[in-house]
């Protein structure tokens, strides 16, 4: 195949006041015609910057190309002046980009049609009318119903998934040779993500466009990519065909990444193997391999031989790697740290016999809708609809579902942050459903919560030590000043942080460290239950594994129960004993992890599991295309009957009228569907 685009020795710098960050360090790669190439790396790995530098989309200043060439169709496109005619021909005309944030990447004050027609008129030299015609065709192609009507819509009238489809249509509108999808599906739900990826794959295969998928999610690319580049700290550390990367990974970072991901097929009895530490400072690269401080295979020679250069692996002409050591299978097996067994002393069986800690009965939560000058209440939206479950002492109960399914509202209702419309919440035998804020004190000291955003859950102006101390002081647990100090040290120690950093402010910590501080605060008053609301989803893969392990170790030592709320099914499977699946405010299926993942009965659970990517190209290739279509309806117009009936492949007339009740489908396994 012909090389369509070739990047040679690209270096990209960010010049700041006092220091220079090297975001991309001597990067070389190529794209071939019609292939799907993935760039995988954690945040700060330089994967996006690398893609943007050719199109000069990195804001300058501070961004600055310090060296290298990008050859595209016989010309070095880096030599084009900023804003030059030639550069603009390439942008949109030859290379299209789909950005991460569908919510902010479209101009909010312009109609979809106008935004699409703009580039069509420019690059394809069409008239306005022809351009609208083409825009309409494209919208149909990306699966937007009522394309003609949609042309007149503004971005805020469309859902996130729809906006991302519009972005795809826009990027494709001028028949580009290369399509760059920069984290294009990251902000979307797992079922929507699968739909969008499938759509992109089909379109590029049909048109012969080269697709570049930039993502942090290694599993995601197993199904779609032909070749994969793994990036770390602004460098390409390994590259190869998808099989080479997933089955014959030979760079310690790639190996580490693959091990750090919990997967639907991995044995659950092993701890995840996180990559220790954090990404090094890009401003201070030093002379050595950037991965050295985190590398489990590091040897003496790594410290003296400078930065490793990419070199071919074996006799493959696609597989390259930048490492001083030759990590053959034998070396790997010898030096590999043996996976630690995950002790789960509280077996599933025990948990059930154990005492019920939290009982949620028939819980409903509604939000009022106001309108008019006097904010009159005109209706209600029900966010949570008759949800019941139990959490036993020392158990981990997983609550999964897509965004807007009400899983976080359940958590907030349990914490009494949201008023309950009907139903009951019993914690440790006491009914707390309608307790007054003041009377909640004794209950709340036994509950704690960890939030999704490690940046928002700590007061930016409170020293972290004081934050951790807060529950101890507020709940009047009778600690003296000295005991308080001691306890804070103990808590910092528990979560693996140094007690001396207690006087620092949150912004001085990385995301993973902040989440550790939040965990320390949650542990402070020795709660019997901790609610983890998407506690790890904002973290990078390698850090995610560290935090999951920490949570598991803590549970082992301290014996509290977790209500683990997440959208990532693989993580939930790894950590939970029992799991409930929520859809549009209702629990549709619940059961032990083995039953639920081994034998999903509800069509929604099946669809969800079907959409989850696995880091296994072989398996992914043989998996059929995803069946689920459509999007989650808004809770404002919840369908009558079964909530899932609008998207369910099995739905019949009965489903549209009547709501199915929960039925026992096996020991420790229930589902709500007429077709069980």
């Amino acid at each position, binding site marked *: 195949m012909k090389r369509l685009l070739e990047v040679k020795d690209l270096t990209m710098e960010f010049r700041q006041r006092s220091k220079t960050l090297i975001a991309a360090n001597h990067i070389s790669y190529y794209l071939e015609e019609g292939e799907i190439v993935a760039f995988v790396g954690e945040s700060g790995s330089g994967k996006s910057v690398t893609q943007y530098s050719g199109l000069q989309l990195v804001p300058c200043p501070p961004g600055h190309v310090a060296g290298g060439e990008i050859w595209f169709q016989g010309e070095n496109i880096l030599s084009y002046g900023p804003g030059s005619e030639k550069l603009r021909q390439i942008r949109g005309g030859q290379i299209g980009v789909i950005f991460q944030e569908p919510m902010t990447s479209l101009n909010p004050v312009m109609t979809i049609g106008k935004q699409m027609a703009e580039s069509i008129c420019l690059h394809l030299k069409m008239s306005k009318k022809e351009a609208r015609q083409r825009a309409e065709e494209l919208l149909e192609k990306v699966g937007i119903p009522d394309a003609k009507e949609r042309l007149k819509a503004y971005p805020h009238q469309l859902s996130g998934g729809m906006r991302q489809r519009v972005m795809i249509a826009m990027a494709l509108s001028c028949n580009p040779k290369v399509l760059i999808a920069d984290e294009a599906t990251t902000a979307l739900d797992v079922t929507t993500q699968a739909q969008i990826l499938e759509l992109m794959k089909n379109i590029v295969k049909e048109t012969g466009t080269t697709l570049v998928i930039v993502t942090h999610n290694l599993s995601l690319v197993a199904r779609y990519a032909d070749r994969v580049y793994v990036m770390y700290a602004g460098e390409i550390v390994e590259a190869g065909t998808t099989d080479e990367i997933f089955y014959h990974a030979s760079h310690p970072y790639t190996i580490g990444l693959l091990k750090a991901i919990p997967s639907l097929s991995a044995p659950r009895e092993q701890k995840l193997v996180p990559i220790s530490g954090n990404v090094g400072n890009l401003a201070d690269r030093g002379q050595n391999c950037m991965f050295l401080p985190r590398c489990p295979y590091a040897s003496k020679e790594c410290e003296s031989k400078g930065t490793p250069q990419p070199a071919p692996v074996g006799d493959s002409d696609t597989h390259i790697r930048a490492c001083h050591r030759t990590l053959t299978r034998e070396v790997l097996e010898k030096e590999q740290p043996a996976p630690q067994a995950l002790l789960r002393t509280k077996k599933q069986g025990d948990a059930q016999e154990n005492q019920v800690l939290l009982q949620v009965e028939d819980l409903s939560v509604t939000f009022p809708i106001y309108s008019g000058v006097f904010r009159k209440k005109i209706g209600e939206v029900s966010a949570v609809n008759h949800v019941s479950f139990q959490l036993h002492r020392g158990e981990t109960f997983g609550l999964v579902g897509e965004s807007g399914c009400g899983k976080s509202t359940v958590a907030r209702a349990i914490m009494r942050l949201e008023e309950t419309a009907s139903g009951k919440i019993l914690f440790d035998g006491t009914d707390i459903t309608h307790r007054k804020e003041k009377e909640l004190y004794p209950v709340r000291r036994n509950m704690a919560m960890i939030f999704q955003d490690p940046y928002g859950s*700590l007061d930016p102006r409170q020293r972290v030590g004081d934050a951790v101390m807060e529950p101890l002081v507020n709940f009047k647990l009778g600690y003296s000043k000295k005991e308080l100090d001691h306890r804070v040290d103990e808590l910092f120690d528990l979560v693996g942080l140094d007690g001396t950093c207690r006087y620092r402010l949150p912004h001085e910590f990385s995301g993973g460290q902040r989440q550790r501080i939040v965990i320390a605060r949650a542990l402070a008053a020795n709660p019997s239950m901790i609610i983890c609301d998407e506690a790890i989803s904002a973290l990078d893969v390698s850090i995610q594994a560290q935090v999951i392990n920490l949570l598991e170790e803590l549970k082992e030592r301290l014996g509290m129960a977790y209500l683990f709320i997440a959208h990532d099914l693989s993580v939930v499977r790894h950590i939970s004993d029992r799991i409930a699946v929520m859809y549009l405010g209702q629990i549709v299926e619940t059961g032990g992890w083995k039953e639920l993942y081994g034998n999903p009965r509800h069509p929604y659970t099946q669809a969800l599991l079907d959409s989850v990517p696995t880091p296994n190209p072989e398996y992914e290739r043989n998996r059929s295309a995803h069946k689920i279509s459509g999007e989650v309806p808004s809770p404002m117009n919840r369908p009558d009957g079964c909530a899932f009936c609008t998207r369910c492949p099995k739905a019949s007339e009965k489903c549209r009228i009547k709501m199915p009740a929960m039925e026992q489908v096996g020991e420790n396994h229930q589902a709500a569907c007429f077709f069980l």
Partner: protein
Amino acid sequence: MEVQKGKQHTTAKRMQEFAGVFFSRKLVIFGFIIIVAMILLALLVPVLSPYDPNLSSLKEVLRHPDISHWLGTDDLGRDVLTRILYGTRVSLLVGLASTLVAGVLGMALGLIAGYMEGIVDSVIMRIMDAMLAVPIVILALFLGSALGKGLGNIIFCIGISMIPRYARVTRGSVLSVKKLDYITAGRIYGASRFQIAVKHILKNCLSSNLVMMTMNLGDAILTEASLSYLAMGINPPTASWGGMVSNGYEWLSMNPCVAIAPGIFIVLTVWAFNVCGDALRDVLDPKLKGTL
């Protein structure tokens, strides 16, 4: 002990970073020097100037600038420079005090409105809207006419008329801070409503208000000058910049310095506060860029 050291170290480092960003533009250094100079001059005038600011000397009426009177004399033979420097005291005092009044009251109202929401919020904010509907100078003028002239009253009037902006900004940031997880965390971990409002919410609104107060200092000084110009501010013979300009206007053709020199001091001072306010915003709250 070691821990204590770590605490000091981080504070020192933070101060250094702060100064680095604050003074990153050369103009800010200039503005900062002006402010410091103004304060020093205001404090030291009695020592620096041989003249009495209010003692008229009919022999030396409307003299042009020369060695003994650097900026000349006014219609009553008083040294213009001396009076300007005494005027610095009035301007700085009124500026600082009225901004403080506005900031404290506005913040309190904004905090209450944003934190309570509902009817309390509506009542407070509608009153703020009503006050905003009347131009600041007019409002201060109007309040001044009700209260009478004098230093204390002027401070109060200007302070009251500037309350709405603080109330609005504070309410806005309270509403956005309230949604953040750490407020929820505070509730979960047993903090009382009052504790949350003061410890978590107010503390985090403080920096944007501090920035706004610095930026408004100039406005307050301008308003005082305007009121004094309209003879609705500081009572003569006390020297105030606005009053001096007004007085000098009558003698413009005979000695322009009397009217024009005090104005230059107004421009310099207000400009210096504005520039420092901008710089402070860049340091404390880069997000506010553009909103203030």
